[in-house]
């Protein structure tokens, strides 16, 4: 991923005379330079070009939160951002907080509480929980609801997600998420 400028000349774009822009971003701690089509969505840049496929695009308009990544410390929807808008940014995806193997602490809590059914929305929730933990949001605070309102889940009915998130926040002080880079 790091190294010399990488121009996206995949066959997919060869025939077009797309306007391109050079960007430099840090993704999961690694420098990335690329010349990307101006209209390339950040979600497609991360998924298709960098192979970071944990994030999911479910609504394409910033309504559901499944594509949430962390940009400069803030949870952000990458389906409604262009790659070029992230020039100079630090981007963290689920791959960047996964443990080397197995599940990190928050992921274990999601498993133990059966807070995952189909799992399509799950990577997005984990990124928001990561931000909440870094901000030391109290599990009893009204802010929890505000954060969780940014995500839709069609399977679980949310109840077990609430439990997992509160437990994660309650334990945040003594046990930060493992596998962080």
């Amino acid at each position, binding site marked *: 991923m790091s190294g010399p400028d990488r121009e996206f000349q995949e066959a997919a774009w060869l025939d077009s005379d797309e306007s391109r822009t050079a960007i430099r971003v840090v993704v999961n701690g690694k420098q990335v330079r690329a010349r990307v089509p101006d209209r390339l969505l950040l979600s497609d840049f991360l998924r298709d070009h960098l192979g970071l496929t944990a994030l999911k*695009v*479910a609504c394409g308009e910033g309504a559901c939160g499944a594509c949430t990544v962390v940009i400069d410390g803030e949870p952000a929807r990458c389906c409604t951002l262009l790659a070029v808008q992230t020039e100079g940014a630090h981007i963290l995806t689920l791959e960047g907080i996964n443990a080397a193997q197995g599940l990190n602490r928050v992921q274990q809590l999601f498993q133990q509480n059966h807070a995952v059914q*189909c799992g*399509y929305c799950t990577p997005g929730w984990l990124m928001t929980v990561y931000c909440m933990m870094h901000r030391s949001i109290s599990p009893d605070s009204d802010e929890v609801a505000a954060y969780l309102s940014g995500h839709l889940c069609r399977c679980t*009915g949310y109840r077990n997600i609430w439990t997992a998130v509160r437990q994660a926040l309650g334990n945040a002080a003594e046990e930060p998420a493992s596998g962080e880079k």
Partner: protein
Amino acid sequence: MTEKTPMLVQPARIRRYVGQAVLRAEDECLLRGTGGFLVDIPAPDAAEICVVRSREPHAIVRKICTDRALANPGVIAILTANDLDLVDEVLPCVDMIPGTLDVRHRVIARDRVRYVGQPVALVVAANRYLAEDAAALVEIEYESLPPVTDHMAAMNPGAPLLYPELGTNIVYQVTQVDGNPAFAAREGDLVIRKRFEFHRQTAVPLETRGVTAKLIDNGERLHVESCTQLPQMLRTVLARTLGMGLDRIRVTAPRLGGGFGCKEMVYPEEILVPAVARKLQRPVRWLEDRGEHFASATHAREETVDTEAVVAGDGTFGGLRLSGWANIGAAFGFVGNTPITAMGAMVRGPYRIPNLDARMFSVVTNKTPLNVLRGAGGPQAALVMERLLDEAARKLGIDRAEIRRRNLLHPNELPLDRGRTGFANAYHIIYDEADYPRCLEAGLGLADYANCERDRKEAAARGKLRGMGISMYVEITAVGPYETARITLQPDGTILLFSSIMPVGQGSETTQRQLVAEELGIAMEQVAIRQGDTDEVPDAVGTFASRGASVGGAVGRMAARELVSNILNCFAAELACDAAALRWEGGGVIGPEPTEEFIPLAEIPARLALLRGEQEPQKIEARYRLEVPKPSYAYATHIAVVEIDPETGRLEIPRYTVAHDCGKVVNPLLVEGQIVGGVVQGIGAVLRERLVYGSQGDLQTGAMMDYVLPAASDVPADFRLWHMETPTSFNPFGMRGVGEGGSIGAHAAVANAVADALRDYDVAVDGSGPFTPAWIMEAVNRPLRAGLGQDRAPHP
């Protein structure tokens, strides 16, 4: 909610899995973001397809001009109906009965479009951006026809006809009668007549649909990968429409990001994309975006039902007469007639009501085709029945719990033949063993029903309108007609189960591994599972109708039993003894007397190889086909409490109670997950979600911003759940289905609770709403009912 104590499996020690809250092994990949959904499967050589869809609800297609689009960068091809070499363009509908008019869905529009979103052409380009650019330049010349979107209007003389050659928009009729359908009211009986309206919704799985297709085996075969609950059915339809032999088609379905019924369908795109791959001789992929999904994935629920109930003075229902009309959109879905059929067939739920006359119809309109959604007609049936019970209780001055007690079937009346029906895969309804009264009392106790009036007064003092709503239902689950499974003891001594049940989020991998491990007496870690590949399981039925664990799990377990028999026969042959001299115990074979040597499963292939003098251990296989002549029936009591703020219209659910019986519980953690998830979907259905069409047939809710799903804040604050376990004799392992019940019960419970909260206001809760804040504000600003309102909340 009941306390749950999840356990991690200790391989060597725990051999009993059924009934245990085993954590899901599949969570690891999902939580790490490596779940392997269709969109995650690399397709580096695939060209991307954008489907050009009708923007007209009803029109003649005069001309399609693709010249400008073809000249656009990156375009590989643009195809319309005549370019696809299809030998048949008809998609299947499995719930047509004699007399049904044939409005089966077509793969692609030829000369006429009938709904916004119908596929008309396909643009193939180097990537999705370029495909969409070109799609915008495809020019379609339409001659507009008048649309009809309302199903009641579509039945009027002179209404626009979608299929003029049929002469009518009424395309399906099914009658369900029981007892004396000519029943009449006697003197003193109460007669309630009501019309119920159910609004149009859609499933909205977080994962949209998608299809990839490519030629494999030197171009001899076609490999189609699709987000479907029915891979085997898709293969059959591909063979017919493409004119290819079954053995030349492999369908795989990856893990699904939710289905809920909307992927229980064979869709136009699932035929079109493979047809393009064959035509162009190159890999292609189509990934549906959310806007397409709202317009082209099947819709659900919309129907109108007229009811007439005859009720004796003591509250017992003597008879029920229904006429129902489903708005099925422009063509049949795979099981598009099932919701209205199930509504008529199952409306009486757990109640005795000896006489029934239900006449149900499907009506075509210029909307997206209708299909099943979690519950498939059950939510409508329960809502009608439960509203009628509350209405009768109110008019007769009988307590709402008491009127249910007086009508419930008792265990000594079961099993009960409730008559024949046109319902697909359940042609004869025979209720199995159950204890409905116990289920009601359990729910009432858990919900603290006895104090609901006290709580209502307490809420009124806080300025809130509080209501409590009861609902009960009986649901057809675990339907047939059959299911298959294959299982192998691998040469390395592990078990591999090939299942036809798709993982859609319900935890089918874990449930099925639990059942197989239990049967074999081995550790779950020794059991692997593969799903959704027609090369591995060519003949199967699929994942729907709450049959994953109850039927799919049962057939997997039966296959494991068959495998034991095969293993014993192998040993008997090598040891030259009778198989009866061997037995299976503790996860292995116990050899013949006098030594009775124990050979654990893991060592069996090597031991057999040794006995046979073979170099390499061989696998041992077993197949099983489970016939399912009778579905089993799940039931539950749901009790919702709502509190309404009359100043803002905000509605909260402080308590929600479920007492349910799905027979033998395989994994209580997952059962609970299904129920809670289903309840919140049901809450969303009656409080939030609604598909809106303009009068001219334009779909106005084409995005998640428009279609409001239940969110984290919509969860009931206090969720109380109680499992009853009455094994059913209709299933080899006593299981009933559980995937859909949460949604079924919640529609009626919440509607009844809303009606109860607003009982002093002159407002009718005759259908599914949705009871949005705007609806509530309109209701509370109406005059009060005459003579009521003593305990109403203070109102501005």
